[in-house]
Every structure is written in C-alpha cells, then in structure tokens.
C-alpha cells in the first residue's frame, strides 16, 4: 500500500464526510474552478451535451444546488424539508497516478433517508484529481449509478 493510496483514501473519506454532514461550502472548495460533477443516465455515456444526464454541474450549478440543499428557511424546498440524512460508503478503491494527477475509482453505496423512506443507491464513481499543496482538487467526478437508466425515484443529494 503506497502513501498515495492512503492520501486518496483520506481525501475521499473527508469528501464523503462533508457531504454526509452537509458542510457544503467546504465540499464546494474541493473542486477546481473548472471542475465538473457528472451523473450520466446511460451506461458508458460519453457525451453530456447531446445526451441527457441526471446531474451535469459546473461550479455555478454546484453552488446553486448546495445553497438549495442548505436552505433551512420556511421557503426551503419541499423535498428537502426535513433535511434528508445521507450516508456514503466508499470501497474497492483503486488509483492510478501520473505526475501531478491521480485517477481514483471506487464502488460507492449511498443511503438517503427522506422521511419515511430509506433509499439506497449503488454507483461506480471515478474522480480525476489534481495534486494541490498537500491535498487534491477534484477536476471531474463521474458517478455511474448501477441503475442510472432504470426507473429512479428522488435523488436528493450529490453522491
């Protein structure tokens, strides 16, 4: 086990914790300014422009969405009141390193409790990471849900 693997493991666990606890500002700061978050619809989908996605967010849309997630006021979203509770489990982590860059792949189990229902989603997730000081910046995060093209009910968070 190399130091790189452990560093990536620590980084991704930290990312999951920020999402689990709704620490949106710090999560947003993990991305490069031109970073993308992508949840495709079709397995093997290569095109986010000519093909619909479940989520395809640049920095502007990520910020908009996170502000919405964080809005606990009276006018907050119906689907986010009370706030869904989420838990992310990351496993089977594999990495490939190049100078200054790391590609990480993992299996992720995501549980979402939106009263009164717990929904579970499974995904293969790929991160393109850029080394930055003693940590990383996310250049691209791609979330391929196991059933991305099947009937899906609400997904109320970023996986």
């Amino acid at each position: 086990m190399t130091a790189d693997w452990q560093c990536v493991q620590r980084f991704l666990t930290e990312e999951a914790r920020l999402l689990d606890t709704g620490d949106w500002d710090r999560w947003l700061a993990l991305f490069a300014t031109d970073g993308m978050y992508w949840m495709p619809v079709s397995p093997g989908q290569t095109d986010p422009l000519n093909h619909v996605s479940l989520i395809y967010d640049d920095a502007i849309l990520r910020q908009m969405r996170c502000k919405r997630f964080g809005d606990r006021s009276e006018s907050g979203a119906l689907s986010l009141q009370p706030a869904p509770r989420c838990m992310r489990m990351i496993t089977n982590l594999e990495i490939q390193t190049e100078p200054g860059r790391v590609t990480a792949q993992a299996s992720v189990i995501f549980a979402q409790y939106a009263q009164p229902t717990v929904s579970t989603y499974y995904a293969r997730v790929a991160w393109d990471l850029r080394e930055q000081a003693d940590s990383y910046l996310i250049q691209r995060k791609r979330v391929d849900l196991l059933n991305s093209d099947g009937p899906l009910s609400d997904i109320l968070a970023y996986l």
Partner: protein
Amino acid sequence: MSRIFARSWIYLGHDSQIADPGCFFATQIGREPVLVIRQTDGSIRALLNRCAHKGMQLCPDGATGKKRLLHCGYHGWTYHLDGRVRTVPVEQGYEGTCVSRGSAGLSAIGAIAHYRGFIFGRLQAEGPDLLSWLGPMRSSLDNFVDRAPEDRVVVAGGVLRYLHHANWKFFAENTLDALHPMVVHQSAVAQARKAQAQRTEQGLDVPFELQAVVPFGAPYSFFNDMGQRGAPFGHGDLGNRSSIHSGYESQQEYFQTLSSARGEEQARQILSISRNNSVLYPSIMFKAPVSLVRVIKPLAVDRTLIETWHFRLCGAPDDLFHRTVQYSTIVNSSAGAVGPDDHVAYQRLQRGLQGQLNDWVLLARYPGQETADEEGALSTQGTSDFVYRNQFAAWSEYMQQDAS
C-alpha cells in the same frame, strides 16, 4: 386502467425509434404490455407483447432493437413481425386446435395511428379517429414539428425514467397548474436568481440552466397572462399566449436556418407560439418550445412512471438540442432542482386525499369565463381552474361508461 387507458388514444412513441423493418420497442397501454414494430412494408403494428402459448411477455418493458422474427424464450415459439405464428416446437399434438403455422398468434391492439411522426395506439377498436381526438391540440403538436427546419424531429439523447409514488392524475393536472411554480419551486428559483445576478454583474454569460429555472418564479400576473386552453377528451395547454420559455435568449443561427427553410414571417409565427405544457389526456405531456415529451405510465393507484423523451429538430443547429438536454437535466431528472419538489407535492396530495371525511377539492377558480377560440378549444386566463374541470369532465365521462 380499463375505463380510461383502454379507451383513449395512448402515446406509444415516435416514428424515428423504429426507422427500419424489424425495429421495435416495448411499451404499455394501461396494464397491457405492447410491442410496436415496423413491418417489412414500412407500416407500423402494435401487438400485445405476450406469447399466445402461455402468455409470457416476449420482450421486457422498455426493450428496443431490431428483429427478423419474434421469439418466446419460454417454449421457443416464434412469430412473424406481423404477429402470425411462424413455428411451434413439436407441432404434432396441436392438430385440430386453433394453433397452426400462419395462424393468428400475437393479437393486434384495437387501433393504431400516427400524426406527424407521433404514434398513438388504442386497445379498443371503436372510438374517434386520431385527428378528431386531437382536435384543437393538433396546432400544439404541429408547433412541435414546425420548429424543425427540415419539418422532421427525431428521438435523441436518452430517456429519463422518474418513478413517482403517486397517482398519475396529479402529474397530468400539475403540468397545467399555473399557481404552483412560484410556491413549490421558490427555493430553486431563489438560488438560480442569485447566481444569475452574480454572473450578470460580473459581465459573464448566464448558463442556460439558470435561464430555464428562473422563470418558474415569475409572478402570478405572468402565469395568468400566459393563458390556457381546454379541448375535448380532457386535453389542454397552459401558455397558449406565452410561457416560461418565451424569454430565452434568442438563437440567431437557428432563427436564420428556420427562416431560410420556411420564410422569415412564417419562422417568426412558429416561434411566437410558445406553449408551456400541452397535455393529451391521459398519457402524454409535451413541451414544443424545448422539444421534449413526458409520457405518463400508471403502474398502480399510487405509482406512476414518468418518462422524458428528447427530440432533435432536423436541420437545426446543435445548440438548440443542447438546450433541450440542459433543460431536462436540471428540471426533469430524478436528481433535478425542480422535479423532486413536485413529486413531494403529489405524494402529499395522495396522502391528503386518502381521508374519507371531506369529499371535496376546490376547482372553482374563474368559473364560466372561457371563450371558444378559432380552433374550437375553450380559452381563458392562465390561472383558471378550467383546465382541471375539463380534465375531470373527461375523467367522469370515461368512468361512467361501462368498463370494457
């Protein structure tokens, strides 16, 4: 299922999904699994998707592809594309029964018809022809295709399948509901507005997704002014005068392409029609201005599958289709900033209406103010409850006929 979905024309899909002979897709009409297949002579047939033998569904729901013959994976019966029996393994033993090569195998549904590429089917043979049933809604469907410089649209860009835990009628009503967007979607709108203001202040371009979400928060007067229409059989449009799509930044290249194809005046006329949501009751809602169709598939009394299909306008620049994709991703996706809030509303409507002690809901707004338009639809202000009264009049009529 048997009184409404079996009697009405139901949207099955689009011509472009089955371009060549043998191309098929599997869908449903109410409870019935249905196969829609392009025949060798170019015509289209809709057959019940169940083997004549023991009734196994031949292709799973949603399946699509191209076949030379239809095959049942249970006992190996095969059928011609038109549904006639082709082969039965160990044929001997069926002598003297209704089964033989070439005999009727897969039953055709009652009726099938298409209009400008959109394919509709009906389980029941008797009933109005498709054009009479569409009535004044033809102009809404026309506008969908008229927007294509080459007068043709094709399915493209994948399908969103959003499972709703509520009755199908809530969706059909809500898409014509002009009094909910500024309430239900206010949190998405508030954040989109802030982001839009920031970008504009910095002199930066505003992503189309923000342009798509912001108009959901337009004031009541805006939604009232957009107007609505109700037509026979429960159909209706919200936005026969203007819509949340009217204010998008114009796309010069597209306008020029459309103008050279149809003439500038005609192009302007086509683009001036910007109907927000058009419902062909009970199975389809479409948005001509952003080239997408949402199909209503009831699964149970409190479960409905909503599929969003996207269309490329032939001859239009790619940019235009990118907008369709961006709109759908941010609005119609199960992970979208708009759809999940509507879905919570439907679930709570379902819960609220489960109670038995109050029989009433109030659909009383602006009674009797409709006027007939030149196409024979009844038109009134956008925030009227007329479109729901019109849907429920059709519902009531379907429900009062004896079940087929």
